């Protein structure tokens, strides 16, 4: 409990037991404040589901306001429903920042084939928006990111199963392609696009931030990771980015989006690279050093001449985002996750 400040008038008095939440035994009354709370009684014990602020009245008549982080209950079915909807929306509608980047790049092209390819890409996402069809037939593996507030209590079932059920329903209802095999070597389609690639993170708060990013494999296959010696320095990373984009060439459906993860461990670098693809293309790394690197590398990539679809032209990449974190004294991991002009993601907070 956190004592925040002394407050004024007394509100409602509560005589029911609240001992299950560890509130002091000398409590004689509570006054509820604010509007974002609800209460249900269970065996005369108080169950409170919300972040509430209340005044408490001790026997010595001292009044204080207390904030208590009660667990907010969220049924996993709500996650299923949200994911079902987000899978369909993400596959039918490109994010606005990606559309804007395509339009800006179209204005900068001068070659006929390059202009024609970008015009077709614009027409394609417009058809998808209007007619509710998938922008691309590779509706991807469903990468699901859940940022779960630490004051959330999930009820009503297994989270992993609820997430897969949301993906299963979304891919069926949305007529999306089922592109997942149940074994990497022996293959065999799972038939429902599950399992989702699920990442969970515990964050402060009492909400859940749900992001779905369907990821196609034409571009995923052109991604790369390298464990650099620290002596390789910035130049090593710059060369690796160019080398990876060069190697990708026409395969990942350029113009690409390039996600770069630097630091952490082997696995963390790859996750950073994937998360870099979720960041809006018109945003920058908060550290000016990396923000400048993002600009510099995007300019260099767009001088390679690979161009839209690899047919030659200026626009090889629509954007390049870098995400970083601390790493070991002996290492400098760098992962590059390549995405295409259909870089999809939708987010909702519940």
């Amino acid at each position, binding site marked *: 409990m956190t004592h925040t400040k002394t407050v004024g008038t007394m509100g409602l008095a509560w005589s029911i037991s609240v001992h299950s939440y560890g509130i002091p035994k000398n409590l004689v009354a509570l006054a509820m404040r604010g509007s974002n709370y609800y209460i249900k009684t269970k065996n005369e014990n108080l169950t409170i589901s919300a972040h509430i602020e209340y005044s408490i009245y001790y026997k010595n008549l001292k009044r204080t306001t207390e904030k208590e982080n009660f667990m907010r209950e969220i049924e996993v079915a709500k996650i299923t429903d949200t994911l079902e909807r987000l899978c369909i929306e993400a596959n039918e509608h490109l994010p606005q920042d990606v559309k804007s980047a395509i339009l800006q790049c179209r204005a900068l092209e001068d070659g006929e084939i390059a202009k024609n*390819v970008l015009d077709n890409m614009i027409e394609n996402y417009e058809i998808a928006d209007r007619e509710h069809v998938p922008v691309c037939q590779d509706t991807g593996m469903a990468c699901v990111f859940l940022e779960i507030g630490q004051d959330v209590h999930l009820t009503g079932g297994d989270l992993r199963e609820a997430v897969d059920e949301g993906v299963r329903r979304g891919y069926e209802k949305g007529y999306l392609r089922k592109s997942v095999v149940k074994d990497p070597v022996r293959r065999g389609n799972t038939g429902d696009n599950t399992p989702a690639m699920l990442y969970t993170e515990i964050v402060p708060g009492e909400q859940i931030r749900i992001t779905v990013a369907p990821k196609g494999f034409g571009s995923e296959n052109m991604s790369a990771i390298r464990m650099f010696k620290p002596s390789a320095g910035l130049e090593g990373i710059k060369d690796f980015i160019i080398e990876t984009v060069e190697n990708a060439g026409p395969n990942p459906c350029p113009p690409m989006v390039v996600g770069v993860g630097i630091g952490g461990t082997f696995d963390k670098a790859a996750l950073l690279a994937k998360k870099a693809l979720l960041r809006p293309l018109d945003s920058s790394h908060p550290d000016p050093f990396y923000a400048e690197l993002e600009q510099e590398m995007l300019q260099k990539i767009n001088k390679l001449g690979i161009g839209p679809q690899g047919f*030659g032209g200026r626009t090889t990449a629509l954007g390049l985002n870098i995400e970083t974190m601390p790493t070991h004294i002996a290492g400098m991991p760098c992962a590059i996750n390549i995405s295409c002009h259909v870089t999809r993601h939708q987010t909702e907070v519940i």
Partner: protein
Amino acid sequence: MEKHITLPLTEELAKTLHAGDTVYLTGTIYTSRDAGHKRMCEALAKGETLPFDPTDATIYYVGPTPAKPGQVIGSAGPTTSGRMDAYAPTMMSAGARGMIGKGARLLEVVEAMKKYHGVYFGAIGGAGALLARCIKKAELIAYEDLGAEALRKLYVEDMPLVVIIDCEGKNLYEEGRAAYLASHK
């Protein structure tokens, strides 16, 4: 150059197509990707016939999304062709001539194209909603158990394509990039 062509893709027709040509293609094509190619090449190795006549045939590397009620087909853009490189020379030796996909091909495929007068067309990767509009008929013909990878017979009208590699081995990926770089020094 802009050309309207009608299938089948005979040797004579193939010889008129050059890397960099924009082509609007009309006629019957067949869909197949990784698992379908594997199965067809296994069938050929055993001396079995293919589910369709490969003579002068064009194969579209695609795994479409399911059709919604009232649609001919769902979203239907090309997949990365390089994964079919292991099978493409065998398919060409059986008579298939046209390939529609996206991305780079191995030298072995280009050599087979020169030998059998094959043509590699590029469709715009990621433009599945747009390309689906050219597909007027779709019929499942084999390997239904492969789901999105099953073999389908499609009838397309004015499908917008670009010749990436022609039967002389000329390659737009190399020439287009070189031309851009030469004009933007």
